[in-house]
């Protein structure tokens, strides 16, 4: 049972890949790149899903994939043009296919009604030429038999024992034939006797070959020149539409199932592939086969590895780095000279360990494509729901980032794209009236910038309606009515909890949790989100995220003898508080005048219970930090040790979450140090002192829930 389950698991993983391939391919075709390669890739994707689904008896999936495949096959053979309408049908079909796969994965039942429309659309496409297609055609098991409607050379080849005795090989002959054009080969096994009667020296097999090639009979005869007299050879020219030709009836074995040959391909593609791969072509193989082998090798160059194994390795390498640091420390302590061979060897070891660490981290890195690929479908759905015309442009899909980051940016991105279409873009009529094309554009871009990944979602819509945002914020009690705000401040109001400008709550967005949730989930990843908006021109949301969640840049500080790490992302400034800037607000709260405001000071050691007497701020080091909601505070420490990158270790795995502490790490001396949760520290202080904003917080919380 277990092994079947794991095969099933692999099948679904492959389905995901194939669906991605399909989506990418259709996207390419949509942009006008109707290369035979792309069409073949799309066809193969559907074909593979169908094949796999057949093994698991997923009949509905197989049926749908088959209909889909049949239609695609017509494109492949140039019988159907890739018009935008056709591509739209294909995109919808791809969505349905993905739904089928998901239903099968969760053992759910798929609602067939939804697929009915698309099926009829697909059938309509296959039957636009009434002479060629009928409904029965769709029920054929093998799409390849469709080839028989074209004129072809019909070759019956029956080798005698002498053929093999002379060292000839049927396979080579068939390959030579394939060089002339597209082949459909059936083997005839009807003459094979029972095993006890079988003479190993005799020949029982014969082949029926359909060659779709524009050549003379002589050229075909030339292929068989060396086996003349050693075989029975019949060559005849068959005009198209010979569906009733009994020679290709079951139970013939379809040779193509054995992967001896590539799927039938267009002759033009063959020559194109030949031109590209002449350099590395194995002379024994037809060129198109070589090009296929190349892609297969490329695909096989990856392996699937359980994420746990990679994580374990990352942990161990982290340990290695720490151990190496400890060893270096000991060597220095032992008074060994820096120039000694031991010290030099240690330097090399350090180099190696860093390199191993980088390589291991790179294993987890993946292109953001997997997330980006889900977006076209989302855009189609939201566009349909909102009656808007939307074009999605994507760039930088190959940008690599840690897998955990990829998994967790999917939801925020979904939200942002929904918002861009629902709130950002105007309806076609308004757009046309404003002198813009009726079709709105949403751009999704990923890029690396200074050690972080930046994801931008921009639209060419109306931009943020600042007057409305401000009115809404006032109405919701988020700001006072007489507040004067800069444009930037108004734009940022949309990130506040409980804010929503959509007058009607729609299915898509507008529940007033959208951007607030996006912001929180982005910040939970150690990222930031910002917005830039120009009225009438559109808005751009920019996400900036760390490349990995496994390491963190932190400031190492000491508080009452304890080593703590403050995430660098939260720190705005380091300060040395001066006596005259310190003011007492009440008996236990003091504020520091900095950056044009009064910022509360928090003695972290006291807050964490490491000491009971507050530190003298003038003798301490202060870090001005900003938490995710934008609240600032000054955290006081004894000393700053410096800045370093630390490996994040969970406290929860063996213990539990500790308030005020985000996680732990292991320092160079092998001891555990704690990473501060700046947000929790600021929040806990605010709660404890029951600030004036309290009613506001409660109000917004109520709205959120």
């Amino acid at each position: 049972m277990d092994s079947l389950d794991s095969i099933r698991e692999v099948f679904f993983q492959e389905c995901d890949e194939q669906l991605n391939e399909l989506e990418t391919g259709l996207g390419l075709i949509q942009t006008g790149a109707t290369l035979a390669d792309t069409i073949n890739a799309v066809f193969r994707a559907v074909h593979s899903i169908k094949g796999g689904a057949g093994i698991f008896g997923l009949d509905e999936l197989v049926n749908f994939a088959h209909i889909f495949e049949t239609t695609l096959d017509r494109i492949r053979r140039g019988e159907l043009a890739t018009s935008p309408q056709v591509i739209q049908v294909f995109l919808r079909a791809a969505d349905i296919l993905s739904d089928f796969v998901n239903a099968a994965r969760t053992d759910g039942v798929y609602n067939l009604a939804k697929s009915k429309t698309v099926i009829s659309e697909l059938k309509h496409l296959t039957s636009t030429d009434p002479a060629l297609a009928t409904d029965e055609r769709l029920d054929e098991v093998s799409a390849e038999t469709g080839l028989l409607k074209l004129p072809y050379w019909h070759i019956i080849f029956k080798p005698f024992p002498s053929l093999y005795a002379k060292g000839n090989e049927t396979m080579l002959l068939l390959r030579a034939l394939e060089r002339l054009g597209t082949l459909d080969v059936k083997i005839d096994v009807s003459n094979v006797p029972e095993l006890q009667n079988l003479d190993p020296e005799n020949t029982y097999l014969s082949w029926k070959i359909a060659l779709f090639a524009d050549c003379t009979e002589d050229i075909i005869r030339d292929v068989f020149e060396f086996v003349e007299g050693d075989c029975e050879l019949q060559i005849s020219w068959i005009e198209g539409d010979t569906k009733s030709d009994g020679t290709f009836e079951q139970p013939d074995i379809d040779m193509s199932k054995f992967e001896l040959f590539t799927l039938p391909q267009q002759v033009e593609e063959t020559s194109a592939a030949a031109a590209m791969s002449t350099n590395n072509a194995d002379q024994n193989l037809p060129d198109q086969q070589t090009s296929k082998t190349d892609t297969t090798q490329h695909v096989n160059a990856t392996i699937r590895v359980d994420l746990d194994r990679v994580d374990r390795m990352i942990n161990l390498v982290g340990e290695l780095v720490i151990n190496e640091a400890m060893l270096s420390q000991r060597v220095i302590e032992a008074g060994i000279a820096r120039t000694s061979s031991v010290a030099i060897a240690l330097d090399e070891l350090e180099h190696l360990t860093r390199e191993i660490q980088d390589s291991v981290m790179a294993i987890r890195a993946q292109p953001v494509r997997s997330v980006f690929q889900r977006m076209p479908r989302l855009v189609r759905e939201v566009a349909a729901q909102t009656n808007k015309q939307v074009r999605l442009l994507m760039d930088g899909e190959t940008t690599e980032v840690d897998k955990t980051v990829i998994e967790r940016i999917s939801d925020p991105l979904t939200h942002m794209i929904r918002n861009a279409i629902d709130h950002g873009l105007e309806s076609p009529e308004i757009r046309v009236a404003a002198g813009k094309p009726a079709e709105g554009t949403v751009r999704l871009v990923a890029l690396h910038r200074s050690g972080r990944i930046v994801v931008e979602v921009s639209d060419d819509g109306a931009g943020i309606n600042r007057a409305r945002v401000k009115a809404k914020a006032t109405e919701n009690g988020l700001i006072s009515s007489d507040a004067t705000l800069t444009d930037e401040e108004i734009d940022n109001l949309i990130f506040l909890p409980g804010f929503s400008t959509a007058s009607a709550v729609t299915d898509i967005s507008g529940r007033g949790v959208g951007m607030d949730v996006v912001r929180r989930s982005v910040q939970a990843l150690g990222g930031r989100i910002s917005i830039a908006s120009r009225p009438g021109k559109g808005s751009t949301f920019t996400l900036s995220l760390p490349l990995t969640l496994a390491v963190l840049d932190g400031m190492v500080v000491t508080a009452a003898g304890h080593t703590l790490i403050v995430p660098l992302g939260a720190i705005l400034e380091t300060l040395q508080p001066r006596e005259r800037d310190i003011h007492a607000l009440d008996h236990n709260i003091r504020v520091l005048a900095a950056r044009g405001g009064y910022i509360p000071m928090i003695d972290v050691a006291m807050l964490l219970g490491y000491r009971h007497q507050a530190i003298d701020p003038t003798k301490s080091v202060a870090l001005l930090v900003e938490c995710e909601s934008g609240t600032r505070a000054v955290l006081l420490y004894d000393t700053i040790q410096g800045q370093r990158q630390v490996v994040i270790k969970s406290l929860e795995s063996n213990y539990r979450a500790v308030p005020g502490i985000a996680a732990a790490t292991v320092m160079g001396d092998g001891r555990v140090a704690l990473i501060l949760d700046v947000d929790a520290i600021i929040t806990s202080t605010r709660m404890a002192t029951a600030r004036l904003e309290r009613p506001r917080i409660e109000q917004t919380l109520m709205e959120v829930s």
Partner: protein
Amino acid sequence: MTNSTYGEPKSRELIAFRIGEQEFCINIMTVREIRGWTAATSLPHAPEYLRGVINLRGAVLPIIDLSVRLGLPSTEPTERNVIIVAQIAHQQVGLLVDAVSDILNFNEENIQQTPDIASDLVRMFIRGLLPVEGRMISLLSLDHVLPADALEDS
């Protein structure tokens, strides 16, 4: 307490250790390793019996001071102290004890009931008593060693 899973005598071997003058034992199958004392990093707002956390080959391991947990007088650990790394459910914890003293074979019928006049604390942790060569060894159940919500959370 009756359907306790950890410290259950699946194997017939127990590992015995000393805390102050008293001897305790736990099921050897729950023990992952035994290591020397290294300085722990204390956690803020932690219960008194939680000495802090140490680095166990890359994992963060909480250290329980068993003597404090069992209501015995606490002493500052030295290099002679021992940490028993035990598996409780899917978590690992380090138990700070004075020394490991013995490995015992035992029979279920040899276990004496804990007298019910014992304090709640004792009855919470001690499954029974084992007489061994004139010594009395308490069989510990590790179910409640970690703070209750630590197990619930995970």
